[in-house]
């Protein structure tokens, strides 16, 4: 007993004051579309079709990048001959729809097949702000400052589970934000669902969703939960993203998303933090970024100022 106490005193507090302060060496790829020549090398190497190209007309071309599908393998960064794809260091990516995680650029194509940037295309669907307001309205006054989370693995490889477990470790300590994991969907405000949803988990996921009381916010975690990821969507065994089965309120992409990102997604679901979907986000053209120091962060609502203990 004494040794336990003295060890604990010696160790002190290991919890990070601000869990969002660190920057990973690699988050999601960031494309400088202005430098892109449309060679499609990145599209070829992408294992999940997160990068897609289209030819709507002989002199037109589009290139889209979806963080919902991206498994952060870095292949595109290495493959780009123009060095137009940079390793992004953005951590806390979350959005309210798949479209908000997608950016699409359009290009003019000349006679030699070389593409030159025209502009960013607007994608259908509401903006981040509109979606945020809608979700806030739905959960208004019902969640307060605490959140009970039921995690559902609807088919994941267990990578996301490892990182979800890590959010509860002494370093990230999500309980200080009033977030608790509960043992039953009947106790839960939020379902934290990882995917891809398999054929054999579809019914269990539906039933879990039905057993959850309103407002039953659903947070889809991971590339597979957002889109089916590497396992694909609509195969005989993998039905795809969680939104194919139940409505999803917040998408947390990544393979697997880091604990910070999962924590951020939950705070977005609570309406405490603003969603942020990386550069573009389906609305605005990305600012040109220089390798190594991309800073596309939007101002964050300081969580700690809301009276949460450190």
């Amino acid at each position, binding site marked *: 007993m004494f040794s336990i106490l003295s060890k604990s005193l010696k160790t002190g507090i290991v919890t990070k004051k601000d869990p969002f302060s660190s920057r990973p*060496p690699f988050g999601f790829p960031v494309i400088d579309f202005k430098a892109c020549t449309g060679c499609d090398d990145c599209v070829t190497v992408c294992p999940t079709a997160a990068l897609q190209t289209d030819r709507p007309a002989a002199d037109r071309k589009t290139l889209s990048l979806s963080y919902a599908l991206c498994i952060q393998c870095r292949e595109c960064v290495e493959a780009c001959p123009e060095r137009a794809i940079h390793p992004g260091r953005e951590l806390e990516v979350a959005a309210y729809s798949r479209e908000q995680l997608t950016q699409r650029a359009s290009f003019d194509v000349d006679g030699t097949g070389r593409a030159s940037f025209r502009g960013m295309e607007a994608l259908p669907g509401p903006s981040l702000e509109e979606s945020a307001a809608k979700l806030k309205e739905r959960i208004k006054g019902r969640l307060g400052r605490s959140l009970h989370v039921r995690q559902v693995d609807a088919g994941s*490889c267990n*990578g996301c589970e490892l990182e979800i477990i890590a959010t509860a470790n002494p370093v990230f300590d999500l309980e200080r934000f009033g977030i608790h994991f509960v043992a*039953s969907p009947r106790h839960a405000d939020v379902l934290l669902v990882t995917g891809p949803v398999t*054929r*054999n988990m579809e019914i269990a996921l539906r039933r879990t969703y039905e057993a959850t009381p309103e407002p039953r916010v659903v947070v889809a975690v991971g590339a597979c939960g957002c889109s089916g*990821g590497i*396992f694909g969507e*609509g195969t005989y065994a993998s039905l795809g993203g969680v939104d194919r089965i139940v409505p999803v309120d917040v998408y947390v992409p990544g393979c697997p998303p880091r604990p910070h990102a999962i924590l951020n997604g939950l705070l977005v679901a609570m309406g405490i933090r603003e969603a942020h979907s990386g550069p573009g986000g389906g609305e605005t053209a990305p600012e040109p970024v220089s390798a190594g120091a991309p800073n596309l962060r939007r101002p964050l609502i300081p969580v700690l100022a809301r009276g949460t203990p450190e």
Partner: protein
Amino acid sequence: MTAARDVLRERLGLDRLAELRPGEFAAEVDLKQLPALADQAAGAGLRLATLFATDEGPTKGFAVHHLWAAREPPGFVRIWARVAADQARFPSLAARYPVANWFEREVMDYFGLVPEGHPNTFRVALHDDWPDGFWALRKAFADDQPVPRVPGNNPHPFRPVTGEGVFQVPVGPVHAGIIEPGHFRFGVAGEPVLYLQLRLFYVHKGIEKRFEKLPWRHGLFLAESISGDTAVGHALAYAHAIERLQGIEVPRRARYLRTVLLELERLYNHIADIGAIATDVAFTVPASRAQVLREGLVTIQERLFGSRLLRGTVALGGVKCELTLGRRKELLMHLDRLEPEFDDLIKLLIDSGTFTDRVDDTGILSNQAARDLGVVGMAGRASGLDLDLRRDQPHDAYAALRFQVPVEVGGDVRARLMVRAREVEQSLSILRQALQHLPEGQALAPLPDALPASSSALGWAEAWRGECLHWIQTDEEGRVARLKVTDPSFKNWPALGRAVPGNILPDFPVINKSFNLSYSGNDR
């Protein structure tokens, strides 16, 4: 080379045994000969490592493959036989070799080939509402379409319970903790468990079929996602299979770096598991401490290799990460700080009577049961099975490094904990050797653009949980025709059904955690 082949030929009485490449032997036999050859192989001390089928195309029918592992001389022996398309049955080994049980039923479920003489021909992988006549791993199967549901088509036979005070406890597929889905059915008399039945395959994602559809270079990322906690283990097994198929020599530096990655994966998983075992007996101080040590490791992994769970580090032909001298020193210093902390953690656990009281003699898997079920890896070594591919059939840099294979004989939760603790010590030693003797030079060999046509190869790696095996076969155009993934969990899950009965139900979580098997790796 041929000396090993000749020894194996003689032991198996198989003159046709060919050596495909070092450590890999194969012979085609007549279907009827398979059981006799199994007896011969088992009698010669070989163990059944995996069993699978292939669809050879519309005219050639199917084939059933038994892959045996030989310790001395070291090698994998694949004995295979053709199955005519209109016969669709093969002789079962399961009655004599229980390790074949789930493998043969999986062949039945996904290929529609009937294991003749199997004592239990109920579905293992397919769920109740899967219709008859849909065989997912046959070539003719339309894998990009949903399969219709036929509710109650093939109800899973759970053992009935009768008697006063005896009842069933169904658990899952959605569990109370943050773990993967699966269904457990306990038969209990009060607290003591009479039996445990497993119903898995909830997270079947069609991975083996998916390998046939993806370009082979992209298969590496799929391999990383077979079981997220074994990303390096499966990526290595896949990379080894591709490299052996292409006859590529991996640079020495890459072999050492791969060893570093695989040992780091072992380290963070073992430490996390030790903490989780403490959690499951409500001993929170060491549990928290283990979580902090694990977090420290994955944090430095992210800094050095770009990924907390070491994804994207293994490449086909080598590795995609680099370790400069400074970073090597940083990692070594981290390990030096970790070691005394880890020793304190283990001391705290085993010096505590309240802890040892819960783990000693809990969840015993006997040596005989482990042997019969073909249990592998850490769980096998805790039941006295002295198996480790790192020593027995070394891959990457293991042949050049010195280490011991810890073996315990208790077979209980304590033994599985101690095997992990001693493996952590060994991993630290392996890491120090590999980092200190890291050869200079290239870390990535160039690969040919195509895979050789109509060929096959086996890749293996001893990951933290046990051996990961990837067997790859290509068609006439060099595309992936079949990729059989064998995760250690597939062989170890049935062992849980043997270890739990006789214990009380509240001890189930800690027994389950002491095995820590992958649902995703099992279900694929």
